[in-house]
């Protein structure tokens, strides 16, 4: 059974129908990259997967839980769905260590000591051990995004969602963040990544999804999508970005 199962998902903002009929099943340990033009609904789709947006109709199941109908339990389900944002959204009033350990402590999932030990371990994984006690504003964009990844991982999620994690970065910092994500993928994390980094999609994705005007127009392994796209709109899009 799929880790994330999306059925007939529709989402409108007022009169604007952004997602028209999305069906998608993501398996455990699978890495999905979502590509598509600006405004095609990529972020909206991702945000429906942890209920930051409410679906207009259809269902989104994560780990067997229907998150669209279950508002009482959404806080619980979200603990298992990590999210990394384009703008990092680190908490500026907390140190790096506090950013990472704060949620597990506040939600009483771990003691302070356990959470901080875990945070140090995660900082080692993203290669920022020495930054534990600085504030986010003292970090570069690439470092902030790696902390944001560590913060999401601190909840020990089953699925990680990434919304253009490198789009706000200076070019020289993109690599360090992608490297962390690649490592995560290799360790078997289930990942859904909205990205404009076609190189990353080619190399790391198990499956690439092309979204246009609220529909999944084409999907398949990267070799298919990039090497031999079938749909005209996919071809047009790839011609523009490659």
């Amino acid at each position, binding site marked *: 059974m799929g880790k994330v199962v999306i059925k007939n998902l529709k989402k409108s903002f007022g009169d604007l129908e952004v997602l028209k009929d999305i069906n998608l099943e993501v398996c455990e340990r699978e890495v999905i990259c979502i590509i598509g033009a600006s405004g095609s609904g990529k972020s909206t789709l991702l945000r429906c997967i942890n209920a930051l947006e409410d679906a207009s109709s259809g269902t989104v199941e994560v780990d067997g839980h229907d998150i669209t109908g279950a508002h009482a339990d959404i806080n619980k389900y979200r603990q298992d769905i990590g999210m990394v944002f384009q703008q990092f959204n680190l908490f500026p*009033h907390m140190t790096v260590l506090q950013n990472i350990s704060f949620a597990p402590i506040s*939600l009483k999932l771990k003691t302070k000591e356990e959470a901080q030990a875990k945070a140090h371990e995660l900082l080692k994984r993203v290669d920022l051990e020495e930054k534990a006690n600085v504030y986010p*504003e003292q970090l570069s964009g690439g470092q902030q995004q790696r902390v944001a990844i560590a913060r999401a991982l601190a909840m020990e999620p089953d699925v990680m969602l990434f919304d253009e994690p490198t789009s706000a970065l200076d070019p020289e910092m993109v690599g360090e963040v992608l490297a962390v994500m690649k490592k995560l993928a290799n360790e078997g994390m289930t990942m859904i990544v909205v990205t404009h980094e076609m190189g990353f999609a080619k190399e790391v994705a198990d499956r690439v999804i092309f979204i246009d005007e609220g529909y999944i127009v084409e999907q398949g392994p990267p070799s298919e999508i990039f090497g031999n796209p079938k749909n005209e709109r996919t071809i047009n899009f790839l011609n523009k970005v490659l």
Partner: protein
Amino acid sequence: MSIPELIIQTWPRLLAGLGLTIQLTIISLIIGGILGLVFGLLSVSKKKAMRAIAVVYVDIVRGTPLIVQAFFIYFGIPAATGIRLDPNLAGIIALSLNAGGYLAEIFRGGIESISKGQMEAARSLGLPYGMAMRKVILPQAVRTMTPALINQCIITLKDTSILSVIGIQELTQTGRLIIANNYQAFQMWTIIAAMYFIIIMILSKISKRIERRMSYGKSSN
């Protein structure tokens, strides 16, 4: 009579008046702060009815003069209900409700100044709304609100003088009563003005210091 002579003659009463002024200010700001927080939170609620409640409260406070609010509570309500309030109590109620309205707007502004991404990041970690608000949004909002909060403290301190109209013997009323005896209006109002001025200058100095210490990565932890 010279000003120093007047001070020597009247200082116990002046200090008592000043003491009451400060007491009224502190109590009203505490109650007003709670009201401001509650109504500020209502005004950023997703629910329309909640926001409407906050709008009505803030509009009533802002749309009527404090002196009318004080008269309404001290004279109006007893006339309708027969329940007489102690003037100090009526004054505290009026001043708290008034400060609460302005503080609600300050809280709303502070909360809205924090980027939406902060709430989303907190919620995406599984934090319930209230916890995210308390631990992520409000600490940041209060920092940005600090100048406005201190400004409101100063305004409320000055507004206590309006309560002299319902007979509360705070600093201004004390001055009036003294002048009624000694007819030294010029000197007495100079003294009273200086007393307000000094207190407010001290408050401003403290606030500057707090503001300076508020930047991230220095004092916070």
